[in-house]
């Protein structure tokens, strides 16, 4: 089971090798955060694991822009939690792409 989540405000954690301090650094652009779960993990645990891990990948106050996954129930649970309307839950074609859109994309 896996999820790919549109991350509009990505962060990373960097440990300074000199003093061991952890810095939270904002990353440029929009990115994808991928979750991969152990086989057979109950849905409620997968849901809780995502909620607990999101603050380590998303800037405080931000939320997923879209959610894709191979388990429709988990995707639905997370969309409800993050107030994403299922009809709007789509990855934009240019998400994370640095190259300009093709004419077909722009139509």
């Amino acid at each position, binding site marked *: 089971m896996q999820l790919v989540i549109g991350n509009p405000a990505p962060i990373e954690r*960097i*440990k300074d090798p000199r003093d061991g301090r952890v810095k939270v650094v904002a990353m440029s652009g929009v990115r994808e955060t991928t979750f991969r*779960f*152990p086989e057979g993990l109950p849905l409620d645990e997968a849901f809780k694991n995502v909620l607990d891990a999101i603050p*380590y990948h998303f800037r405080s106050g931000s939320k997923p822009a879209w959610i894709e996954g191979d388990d429709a129930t988990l995707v639905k649970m997370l969309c409800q939690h993050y107030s994403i309307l299922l009809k709007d839950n789509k990855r934009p074609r240019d998400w994370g792409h640095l190259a300009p859109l093709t004419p077909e994309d722009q139509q």
Partner: protein
Amino acid sequence: VIRTMIRLHAVALLFAATRLQLRTLAGRDWQALVMADTAGNGSGAYHAANFLGVTENDDDPDEDNTSLAGEISSGTLTRAQATFAHTTGAASYTLTRTLTSDDNVTLRKIGVFTAVSGGTLVFETRMNEIAVMAPGDQIQITHTVFL
């Protein structure tokens, strides 16, 4: 003078070699996937390190350790595979596990292993907060690995 010149030359070469080793963003992604992806293809000694065990032991983590002292090895808190998460290009990834206690325990440290039993202890870390648990209590542990 010649000795000093040789020294300076050696320092310059070392500096150049260090500067040449740039890790790319794609390289970070590769590292994260190889090290911890639950969908990884590695097996045996090359299995990804994504099994998380816990202990009440309070000894300082030690780089010589090959096992997690006092690791809980029975009941609901035994070692199990965690959920892997990584953001493209990030210099870190996370392993998350939900634990429901079946005993009165005080969790202090975690270990990240390459197998559900035995395997290699790859990371040993004190928890940010000690978790005092009674039967039925549930916690989530998210461990960040720095690349």
